[in-house]
């Protein structure tokens, strides 16, 4: 029962924890990074050795050149897509939490709404995107709607599930203390749902950027989707690869951001990695 059991408690200023996490993450992802470098190298060698046409498969060096050539317009396209994705995922998450709350608290709503939610996910976005352009024009609105539609689903499912599965004994305990509904929500239900909410949000964040790009592809004045559209019309496969890389990097960054947010919001879920080393 000595103080040594708990070296981390109370000693860390606010920033030490994220820095520590980032350093550990860097070490953990080093092998993945090395593998990526190897694959890119292999790709370069293979394209040169087999003399593959650039419009079929450009070598990484050619993709890099395309990136340098178009780097003046890329920030604007990227920013548009990122904005749509962030806005969409925020709205999607908010709607998701709201729906999860009423699904978990009213059985009738659950019975009526749940099948509809699943139906909403069976409509291919590529069908929905042109419709939304017809209804809302070429601006950001239809893209944000698409992203929100993609993002809300995993959030509703995981959050409502967690609310319904909250520990009955804990609810009974606070009830025995005289807790009202609001206090039960605050002390038990919300904290039990936080980890699952973030699990849903992580899935959403992995799809959000790609969702925005698909929506733009149908029609937009700015964004990575329209950049891909134009590049493909001009057979600039190298530029398409530039966009693919940017989409991958943005998605990973978004995913990592959600992950860090979840660590901050649910610190009790992440104790193991701190104590073992």
């Amino acid at each position, binding site marked *: 029962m000595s103080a040594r059991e708990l070296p981390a408690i109370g000693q860390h200023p606010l920033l030490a924890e994220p820095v520590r996490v980032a350093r550990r993450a860097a070490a953990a992802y080093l092998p993945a990074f090395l593998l990526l470098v190897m694959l890119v190298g292999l790709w370069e060698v293979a394209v040169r050795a087999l003399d593959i046409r650039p419009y079929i498969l450009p070598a990484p060096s050619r993709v890099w050149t395309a990136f340098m050539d178009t780097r003046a317009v890329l920030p604007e396209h990227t920013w548009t897509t990122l904005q749509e994705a962030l806005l969409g995922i925020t709205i999607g998450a908010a709607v998701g939490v709201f729906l999860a709350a009423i699904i978990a608290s009213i059985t009738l709503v659950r019975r009526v709404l749940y099948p509809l939610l699943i139906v909403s996910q069976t409509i291919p976005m590529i069908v929905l995107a042109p419709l939304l352009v017809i209804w809302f024009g070429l601006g950001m609105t239809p893209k944000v709607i698409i992203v929100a539609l993609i993002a809300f689903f995993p959030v509703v499912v995981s959050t409502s599930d967690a609310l319904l599965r909250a520990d009955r004994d804990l609810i*009974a305990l606070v009830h*025995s203390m005289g807790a009202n509904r609001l206090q039960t929500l605050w002390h038990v239900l919300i904290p039990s749902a936080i980890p699952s909410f973030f699990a849903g949000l992580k899935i959403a964040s992995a799809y959000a950027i790609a969702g925005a790009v698909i929506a733009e592809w149908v029609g937009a004045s700015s964004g990575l989707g329209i950049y891909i559209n134009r590049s493909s019309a001009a057979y600039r496969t190298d530029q398409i690869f530039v966009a693919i890389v940017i989409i991958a990097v943005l998605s990973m960054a978004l995913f990592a951001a959600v992950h860090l947010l979840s660590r901050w919001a649910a610190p009790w879920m992440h104790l193991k990695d701190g104590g073992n080393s």
Partner: protein
Amino acid sequence: MRASTVVRTMTGIQVEGLSLSFPGRPPLRVLEDIDLDVPGGSFVSIVGPSGCGKSTLLRVLAGLLVPNKGTAQASGEDTCGRAGHTAYMPQRDLLLPWKKALNNAVLGAEIAGVSKHEARERALSLFDQFGLAGFEQAWPSQLSGGMRQRLALLRTFLLPMEVLLLDEPFGALDAITRRGMHQWLQEVWQRDQRTVLFVTHDVEEALLLSDVVYVMSARPGRLIERVDVRFPRPRGLEVVSDAEFVDMKARLLAALDRAMGNVPD
């Protein structure tokens, strides 16, 4: 010594003709015709075989279960289906995993409307007595089973209710820590003289702490034996070897034997 001479406003626990079965085919008869009077300010224990309905009785008094028949009152309030009148410590040490130890300790007080600052002050002074000093900011998952149980007990004590319902509060403690907690519990209880209904498997523990010990029979649970314990307090270890103590212990064990005798399955 005993506080029975002190004028109190405490009304204790009154249970009359209480029966409870859980629905099913056939229904599971758990409690049958329980009559129990715990005078205000007294310490009463219930011992009984596993599964006989001890926790169920406490849950009725905590307002979490509604009996099929009979009445249950705690500190003058009807508790059947109405929670918030008793300080209940469940058998499972239910700590909220998302609150650090100190915040878990003040949870009940907070819900009951005691000022958080005041509750924290009191909790902090108790952490030392409970052997939890230095762990105020630990997460529950970083505590040992015994520490978790002591924290749950501490939280129960901080609730501002007259009646305490303690369901095997020392079940996860080793013999030595347990003994320390017995001494501590006697002191605290003598100081604020709240009504305690205590469930345990340990006959010696029951005799050491209680004014009255009841034995509950196997399902359906009935109170089949009552032993009044009149040793002066505080009771040290020496009381355990007292002839009268040994006698009472034998009576309780015999009653427990009888209680086990009619296990249906």
